[in-house]
């Protein structure tokens, strides 16, 4: 467990973080060309949170996600080719090109879906957690949600329900300092610094970690997930992080302090910090990391090329996947 990642584990985690970063950087560039339909919210800068948690999960474990969901999808193992095609609205996409960025879902790997409704993830994770509990299959659910979502009634109800029913659910708050343009400092009295303060009031252990430090997230995630898996009930982990891009692509970001992102990219970048730790500890040399960087770059490049070349969904497909029959 924590503190005992093999070299293979470390390389795998780094590759995932690099995949998320490269995926988002590329969409940032491609979106500007106008070729991508709909809306995208980028996860760049927050990679350590999704990967730090999902590295402890298997395909039976489920996650629920947000409008900023690409990172969660990649970390949980959704196919990158399918994701890119989905974002381009192509037939080969994860959801047949009919969902787009905010609805990527893949139940086979336990990804319950990105979600355009802020605060919709916590009840979904509780539902999945209830299923795990009733089936006694040892699976857990993890809900990623933002500081803005933390103010939604759905989230408070879910925290209360998870504690009351002892559900194997881990609440992962991605506190990136902004809900669109508003800081959590202006939207509550309790939780202006640490939103974890509120969760404690529901009766579950709640902690705050440096969300840009992969190792801090990974350790906390390991403990919270193992606890839930063994029947210890829900826990809440607040990860302090920062998004590198606007709330959505096209956001003018006039609410941000000048230089905030530049400073973070230089001194608080989750990938750079990961690399610094493993290289300093003589666990991995930088050439191995650079090799991964190159491979990932080629992979994302391939995904974009394939997505652009893929066909659009047939008009008839409008009538499929609308209702689920039980």
């Amino acid at each position, binding site marked *: 467990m924590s503190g005992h990642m093999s070299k293979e584990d470390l390389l795998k985690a780094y590759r995932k973080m690099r995949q998320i970063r490269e995926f988002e950087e590329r969409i940032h560039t491609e979106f500007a060309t106008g070729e991508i339909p709909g809306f995208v919210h980028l996860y760049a800068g927050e990679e350590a949170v999704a990967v730090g948690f999902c590295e402890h999960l298997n395909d039976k474990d489920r996650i629920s996600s947000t409008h900023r969901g690409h990172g969660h999808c990649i970390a949980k193992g959704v196919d990158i080719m399918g994701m890119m095609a989905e974002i381009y609205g192509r037939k080969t996409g994860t959801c047949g090109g009919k969902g787009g960025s905010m609805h990527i879902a893949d139940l086979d790997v336990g990804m319950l879906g990105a979600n355009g409704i802020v605060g919709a993830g916590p009840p979904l994770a509780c539902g999945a957690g209830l299923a795990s509990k009733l089936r006694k299959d040892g699976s857990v659910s993890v809900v990623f949600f933002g500081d803005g979502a933390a103010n939604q009634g759905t989230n408070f109800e879910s925290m209360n329900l998870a504690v009351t029913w002892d559900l194997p659910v881990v609440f992962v708050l991605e506190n990136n300092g902004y809900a669109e343009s508003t*800081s959590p400092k202006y939207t509550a*009295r*309790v939780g202006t610094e*640490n939103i*974890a*303060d509120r969760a404690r009031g529901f009766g579950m252990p709640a*902690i705050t970690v440096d969300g840009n430090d992969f190792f*801090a997230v990974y350790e906390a995630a390991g403990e919270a997930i193992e606890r839930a898996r063994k029947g210890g009930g829900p826990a809440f982990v607040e990860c302090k992080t920062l998004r590198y891009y606007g709330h959505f692509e096209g956001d003018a970001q006039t609410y941000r302090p000048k230089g905030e992102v530049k400073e973070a990219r230089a001194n608080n970048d989750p990938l750079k910090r990961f690399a610094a730790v493993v290289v300093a*500890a003589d666990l991995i040399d930088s050439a191995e990391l650079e090799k991964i960087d190159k491979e990932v770059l080629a992979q994302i490049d391939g995904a974009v090329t394939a997505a652009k070349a893929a066909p659009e969904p047939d008009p008839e497909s409008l009538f499929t996947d609308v209702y689920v029959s039980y």
Partner: protein
Amino acid sequence: MNSDLVANSAVGIIANPASGQDIRRLISAASGCSISEKTNIVRRLCLGMRVPGVEKVYLIPDHSGIAGSLLRIRDQGSAALGENWPEIALIDMPVEEKAIDTLRAVNLMVKAGVRLIVVLGGDGTHRLVASGCADIPLVALSTGTNNTFPHFQEATVAGIAAGLVATGAVAVSDATRRNKVLRVEIDERCCDLALVDLCLTDDIWIGSRAVWKAERVREIFVPFARPDAIGWSAVAGYVRHISRESSDGLHLVLCPPGQGLLTLCAPIAPGLILPVGIAEIHTLKPLDVISLKNLTGTVSLDGEREFTLRQCTSLNIWLDLNGPLTVDVPHVLNLAAERGFLYCASTESTKMPFER
């Protein structure tokens, strides 16, 4: 009351918003302390300090956190409950929500001429303050149950004691005691200190900082050792009681439980009691430098991993008797009671002592 009281007595308060929030709430039954509760504690401190006449309190300007809430609570408390507050001054400094805030604030408080600093936090917060406060006395208060250096004490009472010292009603020489510290030097450059314990661990990263896996701790150094402590220092306390006043420290080399000289069952975090094997026991004498080389892993200071070591790192550790001064709150209050400092002006008066 003493006639040569200090005019404009000012006190600094360092209340760490991040204390009581770390992974120990997940891996053990450690108590948590919310910002609201910390704000409430600071309020009680301020009201206590006002009794002997503290005029001004300096705080870190975390407008969205403790300081911001405190100003609101002050206005409400003064208006609705008639509370008597000292002036609240926010230090002019940037807030980064990192340890650097504490270091910066202590520095600026010292420059502003505070007579005393009240610290609200855990062992880690106290360590940061101790590294910059020189001989300004500290009132060391714990925000939770997980600490060995500071005491868990009602803030109103601690505030009164702090005020008695800050105003000069009780002399610093009568009120304080000197603490021992461990100094650590890494590669003969970076120097740091530990107030409670220094551990060498097998972890390869700092990560979530806390140290709770007994099998990963190789060596423990402590400046004092009490069996009623919590944390790694308790392990040393079970081996030998070394008071905070004595001039010794202790160095233990650990081994797997069931091997070595003895095996202890020690409370290394609240509710987390683990067997710990002891292989070697050494007394630390002041300024005897323990030099270590060829280590990998991390160095933890006061329960938190701080540095990672590489094969080539050299480490010097020694006991220094010249650590920070801390106020003995019960002793100060005893003196004040004996000397009648806390009486109102007369039996007919209900004025605060300083208002005479």
